């Protein structure tokens, strides 16, 4: 029984920790499938987290905060689009720039507006997205295993968690079952063909980048208004890059992306859980080893030792119409 409770708690925090990764990963999916590499997920998430928390702190409404998060994140996404689509700049360089601008601007503006050393005021009660208890969660608690899974793991999360899982399905549907999705994927593989068909490559890529902005807005809002209570400096802590790793790990597909994010979330949860406690057989695993594991796994995957991760063919290449 104790084992079940332990795992129920670990899986519960796995879900909590994987949600920001999941939103960011799906965000990257849209952009990269359209042929625009985006290593600025981290920065957009951070900017969104700040905008959301600032808005919620001032107006006391998390939904307004979410809107602000999405608007700011999309604005950053459009800067990336302007640089990499319209100006045909280097997409990696642009992403790096966005990460730095967001990291600096959030702290400077936070300090100037709230005078709390770069953080926003703590959000309390209704200013955050509060936990939702699924129907019958407390009644089912007594049922062995299933009840535990339902009431501890699945119930008691904020609305954003359920939106995230819905987004996995929705992204799949958009990308693989709509005309827009087909064109979006085509523009990431062979933009010239799309252009020949009379469809604007630039406008399509801009729309993909906007999708990225919206989803990064959700990721940031979740960080500062659901799992956290307010913005703190550098609160994304490299999650944008783990999301990128998960995206590669999932070979740019939504379903596997969810599994990859859950796996990386699980590693995170277990490393928090296991701090200092020895494992049977293995002995004490240093926490740093578990923290580094997602990155190591990604490198191993990229090297083609477990399957092959092939990025969209036109990824990172600006489209030039006339040649």
């Amino acid at each position: 029984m104790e084992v079940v409770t332990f795992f129920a708690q670990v899986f519960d925090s796995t879900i909590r920790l994987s949600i920001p990764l999941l939103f960011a990963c799906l965000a990257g999916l849209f952009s990269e499938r359209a042929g625009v590499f985006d290593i600025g997920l981290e920065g957009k998430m951070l900017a969104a987290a700040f905008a959301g928390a600032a808005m919620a702190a001032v107006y006391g409404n998390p939904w307004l905060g979410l809107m602000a998060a999405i608007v700011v994140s999309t604005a950053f996404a459009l800067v990336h689009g302007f640089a990499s689509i319209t100006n045909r700049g280097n997409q990696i360089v642009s992403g790096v720039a966005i990460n730095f601008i967001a990291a600096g601007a959030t702290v400077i503006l936070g300090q100037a507006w709230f005078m709390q050393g770069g953080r926003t005021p703590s959000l309390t009660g209704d200013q955050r997205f509060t936990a939702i208890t699924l129907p019958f969660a407390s009644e089912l608690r007594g049922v062995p295993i299933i009840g535990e899974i339902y009431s501890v793991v699945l119930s008691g999360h904020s609305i954003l968690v359920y939106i995230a899982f819905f987004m996995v399905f929705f992204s799949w549907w958009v990308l693989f079952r709509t005309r827009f999705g087909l064109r979006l994927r085509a523009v990431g593989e062979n933009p010239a063909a799309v252009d020949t068909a009379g469809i604007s490559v630039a406008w399509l890529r801009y729309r993909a980048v906007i999708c990225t902005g919206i989803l990064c807005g959700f990721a940031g809002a979740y960080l500062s208004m659901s799992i956290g209570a307010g913005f703190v400096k550098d609160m994304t802590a490299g999650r944008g890059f783990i999301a990128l790793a998960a995206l590669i790990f999932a070979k740019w597909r939504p379903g596997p992306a969810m599994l990859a994010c859950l796996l990386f979330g699980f590693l995170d949860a277990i490393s928090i859980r296991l701090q200092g406690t020895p494992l049977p057989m293995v002995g004490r695993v240093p926490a740093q080893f578990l923290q580094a594991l997602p990155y190591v796994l990604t490198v191993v995957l990229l090297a083609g030792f477990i399957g092959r991760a092939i990025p969209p063919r036109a990824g990172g290449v600006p489209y030039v119409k006339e040649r």
Partner: protein
Amino acid sequence: MAIPHGKLPGWADYGLLPLINVIVAFSVSGLVVLLAGESPVRAASLLVEGAFGSGQNIAYTLYYATSFIFTGLAVAVAFHGGLFNIGGEGQAYVGGLGVALVCLWLDTLVPWWITFPVAILGAALAGAAWAFIPAILQAKRGSHVVITTIMFNFIAASLMVYLLVGPLKPAGQMAPQTRTFFEGGQLPKLNWMLEAFGFTIRSSPLNISFLLALVCAFLVWILIWRTRLGYEIRTQGHSPKAARYAGIGEARIVVITMLISGALAGMMALNPVMGDTNRLQLDFVTGAGFVGIAVALMGRSHPAGIVPAAILFGMLYQGGAEIAFMMPNISRDMIVIIQGLVILFAGALEHMFRPWLAAAFASVSPRSVGLGRTGREGA
């Protein structure tokens, strides 16, 4: 990549356009200062005062610049080979391990001038080793060096935390750092150099690795523009296809370029670890690896541009401290924004003003952009 749109005279291409980009980056930074409720003009004057106001301040500016020269050169060498090494941060961090191990080993045995060359070797080897895996993976297995070097930054951070809270920490000490190096592991300061110009300096961390950085800048220039290897690296960077036809081994160039880049990034660790704190600490790189990206872009990957760009960023770091002291709203994070804006305007948006500038040149003097009656090639 082909340069889009108009052709410009050489001096405008290599001087004016980058200058415009940097000016725009700084103007936007000024807007951020304004948004934070402070005067950009006063901030700028505080910045210059803080960076160059006294011998002490100049020494600090040059101390920071030293680190940025190393990381800037590291990024630039990789750029020439068509590679984007974002891993400077991690390579410098691991480079610190190389420096620390050499110092811990030799500092009680020999004077600093024997430790120094060995430490240079240690730093370069450690940095290069950290760049080697991403390099070999790109060369042999086709995984992109951008993603792998980002991943290696995080792996380096975990590795160093593990080492500094565990094996490298002396027994009975709380702080996660190595023991302090003895005299044989401390680089001499360069205060005499500035004092020779009539400045007075109480104490500053500026040390002899500044001169090493300048030597490295010169060596990089020789390597890239005056050697066969440099020619191969540039060919590979400009046109991998041409390089292949010319019989240049692609895998070999990728690996060698990344090794040189990693070694340069690793040598950055000499400055703070052996030159200033004299012990290996957590997070001693503090973003210098990333500043290198901005420095390389601003300096157009040429040592003659990188050294002034590094000094400019050294000025921002040192002067930024002054601003933070005088204007509570502007913390040192302002530098991070400026860095980002420089990368954006001098890097990703570098050609934004080109069509506009080309049109201006064409209307003022058609000959300068190759539209003259003589029909000569543009300069």
